[in-house]
C-alpha cells in the first residue's frame, strides 16, 4: 500500500527527516512512537502533501503510484487521510458543509454519484452515533470552539465518513478522556479491514491497548531507529527512549550488535 524509501526532508535549511524507510501493507496497523520533535508530524504531513516541506531525496509510493507530485486534495481523493495533531478551526464554515464538500469531491474523482443533502445527512448521523457525538455538532463551525478532545473526535468522525484506504493518525489519542479514547479506538477499529492500512503516531501505550498494532517503530532524530512488534511499545513505556538513543558504551543492556 505505502512504500517510503530513504526519505530526506528539509524545512528551510533544517534537515528534519534523515532517511526514513517504511513499508506498510494493506490490512496492517503501524504505530510510530518517538521523542518530541523527532519528526513524526513532519512525516505524516509530508505523506498528506502539505506545502513547505522540501523532499531532498527518497520516494513515497502509494498503491504503486509516486505521490510526491500530487497535491493534498489529489492524495485525499486517492484515499489518503490525515487526522491532524492540531485540528484547525475554520470560523463560519459549517462542519457538515466541509465534510460533504470533501466527500463529494472524493466521490466525483472516483466517478461515484455525489450525495445529496439528505443522503449525506443520513450517513453522517449514523457515523456520529458511532462516535457518540451530539447532533448539535452538525451545525457548528469547523472545530469552532470545540474542546481539545472534541476536535480529535471530530477528526475520527471525518475519517469514518471519508473511509480512506490509508489513515494517518497523528496523536489522535492525546487530549482524550478515558471514555473518549475507547470511542475513538472503536471508530478506528471499525475501519480496519484487509484493504486498509493505518499509520498512527502516539506517545502512549494506552491507545495501543485498544488498537493493537502489527508493528511499532521508533522515530528519533529524523530516523527510524528501531522497529518491532507490539511488545516494543510496552518496553518503551517502561524504559523510555534513552536506551535507544544513547551511545551504548555504558549501556549494559543487550540491545543488539552495536559497536565497532
Amino acid at each position, binding site marked *: 500500500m505505502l512504500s517510503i524509501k530513504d526519505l530526506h526532508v528539509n524545512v528551510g535549511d533544517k534537515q528534519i527527516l534523515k532517511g526514513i524507510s517504511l513499508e506498510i501493507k494493506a490490512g496492517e496497523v503501524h504505530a510510530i512512537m518517538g521523542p518530541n520533535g523527532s519528526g513524526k508530524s513532519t512525516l505524516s504531513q509530508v505523506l498528506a502533501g502539505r506545502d513547505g516541506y522540501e523532499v531532498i531525496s527518497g520516494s513515497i509510493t502509494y498503491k504503486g503510484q509516486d505521490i510526491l507530485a500530487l497535491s*493534498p486534495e489529489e492524495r485525499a481523493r486517492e484515499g489518503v487521510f490525515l487526522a491532524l495533531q492540531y485540528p*484547525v478551526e475554520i470560523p463560519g464554515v459549517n462542519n457538515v458543509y466541509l465534510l460533504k*464538500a470533501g466527500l463529494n469531491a472524493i466521490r466525483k474523482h472516483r466517478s461515484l454519484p455525489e450525495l445529496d443533502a439528505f443522503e449525506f445527512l443520513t450517513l453522517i448521523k449514523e457515523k456520529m452515533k458511532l462516535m457518540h457525538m451530539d447532533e448539535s455538532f452538525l451545525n457548528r463551525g469547523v472545530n469552532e470552539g470545540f474542546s481539545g478532545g472534541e476536535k480529535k473526535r471530530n477528526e475520527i468522525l471525518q475519517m469514518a465518513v471519508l473511509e480512506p484506504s490509508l489513515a494517518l493518525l497523528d496523536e489522535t489519542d492525546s487530549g482524550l478522556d478515558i471514555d473518549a479514547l475507547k470511542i475513538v479506538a472503536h471508530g478506528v477499529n471499525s475501519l480496519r479491514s484487509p484493504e486498509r492500512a493505518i499509520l498512527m503516531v502516539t506517545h502512549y501505550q494506552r491507545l495501543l491497548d485498544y488498537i493493537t498494532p502489527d508493528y511499532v517503530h521508533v522515530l528519533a532524530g529524523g530516523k527510524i531507529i528501531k522497529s518491532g512488534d507490539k511488545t516494543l511499545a510496552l518496553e518503551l513505556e517502561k524504559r523510555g527512549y534513552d536506551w535507544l538513543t544513547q551511545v551504548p558504551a555504558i549501556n549494559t543492556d543487550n540491545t543488539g550488535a552495536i559497536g565497532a
Partner: protein
Amino acid sequence: MSTTPQDLEQLVAQKYRHGFVTDIESDTLAPGLDENVIRHISRIKKEPEFLLQWRLKAFRHWLTMPTPNWAHLKIAPIDYQAISYYSAPKARTDAPKSLDEVDPKLLETYDKLGIPLHERARLAGVAVDAVFDSVSVATTFKDRLAKAGVIFCSFSDAVQQHPQLIEQYLGSVVPHGDNYFAALNSAVFTDGSFVYIPKGVRCPMELSTYFRINAANTGQFERTLIIADEGATVSYLEGCTAPMRDENQLHAAVVELVALKDANIKYSTVQNWYPGDENGLGGIYNFVTKRGDCRGANSKISWTQVETGSAITWKYPSCILTGDHSVGEFYSVALTNHYQQADTGTKMIHIGRNTKSTIVSKGISAGHGQNCYRGLVKILAGAEGARNYTQCDSLLMGDRCGAHTFPYVEVKNSTASVEHEASTSKISDDQLFYCRSRGISQEDAVSMIVNGFCKAVFKELPMEFAVEAQNLLSVSLEGAVG
C-alpha cells in the same frame, strides 16, 4: 509551509463576467455640464418646475464646493466636463409601456446578466426595475404590487404620477448640498427607482432594481427613494454591473430611505460594477450616498451590502435614528482585488431615546487591493439609553494588499453604551491544508473559508441573493491563491 506572496499573486486572475457591451442606438447628450444641460434633462423628462428649481439649486451649490479630500483613496482628478450626463436607449415610443415594447437587445442584455425580466423574475417572485444607463426600462409585477397599494416604478414615472410624494420626500434625508457627489447627483440625476409602501402594508414580494452602465463616457446618476409609511415593511435589493472599458466611469447615486413609525426597510446591495483589469486600468468609480431616516418610533432600517466590484468604492450607507426605539443595522462585505480600492462603512446617528444600532463589517483584501472601513457612531445628548455594537473584521490575502479601520465614536449621553470589536486575520495555510486534505480543491477551500468569514453578513441577505453573493465572491477570488 507558508503560502508565498508569489502564490497569492495568482489570486487575481479572474476575468469580469459581465463585461459585454450592448450594441444599441442611444440618445446621448454631448459631454459637458452647465445649467443648460440641467434644463435640458429636466425638459426631456417633462419635469414639474419645483424639480427643475431643486436641480438648479443643487448645481449652483455644487459649483461652490471643493472637491472631496480622498482620505485613503488614490484617485486621479475627474473631468466633469468630459462626461455625458444623459444617455437613453432609443425607444420607438417615449417610454416602454410594457415589456413587449422594450428593445429585444436590452432584454437580451438582462438575460446575459441573469436577470430575465419576465421569466425568472416571475419564478423568484421578485419584482424587478431595470435601469440601463440613465433610463428605467421596465418594471415587472406592477399590477400585483398595485393591488397591495405599493408604488414601485421608475423615478421618472413617480415624478409624473406622484409629484406630491416626490416634493415631500426628495432631499429630506440627503439634502441637495449634502456632499460633493450628492449635490452633483441632485443636479443631474436622470432616473432611478421609487417605492412607496402604504400604511400597514407588508410588501408582498422582494423589490429589486438592476443598474447597468452601457454607453461609453456616460456617468450614471440614479436616484432612489423608498418610503415606508407607518407599520409598513419592505425588502429591497439592488444589483449592478457594467461593461469592461479602459476609461473609468462615474457612478454617483443617491439613495434615500424614509421609515415612518413602526416601519421596516431592509435594503440589500450586491454591487458588481466592473472593477478594472488586473493592472488597475478602467473600472467604475462608485461614489454613492445612501442614507436612511428612521423618522418614526420603533422603525427599523437595515443595510446589507456585498461590494465586490468597482475600481473605487466610496460609500457609507447610514442611519439617522430619529424615532425613539428605532433600530439601524449595517452588514457589509467589501472585497478588493487587483488594484481596487474601497473606502466604505456607515454612520449611525442616534437621536431618539433607546435607539439601537449594529454594525458588522467584513473586509477582504487580495492582490493590491486596499480596503478601508470608516464608521461613525454618534450619540446625541437626547439619545437616552442608546446602544451600539460594532464588529469590524479584515481578512488579508497576500502581503501587497491593505486593510485599514477608522472607527469614530462621539458620545454626548452618558447612559449610552458603545461596544467595538475588531480583528485582522489572514487565510491561514493551516486552514487551507486542512480543507485540501479532505479532498477539497484549493479554490473551493479559499472560497469556503472566505464565505465562512462573511457568514454573519450573508445570513442577512434574502435567501436567493445570499447564494448569488457567495458565487460572486467565489468568482472574484478564483485563482486567488496559487
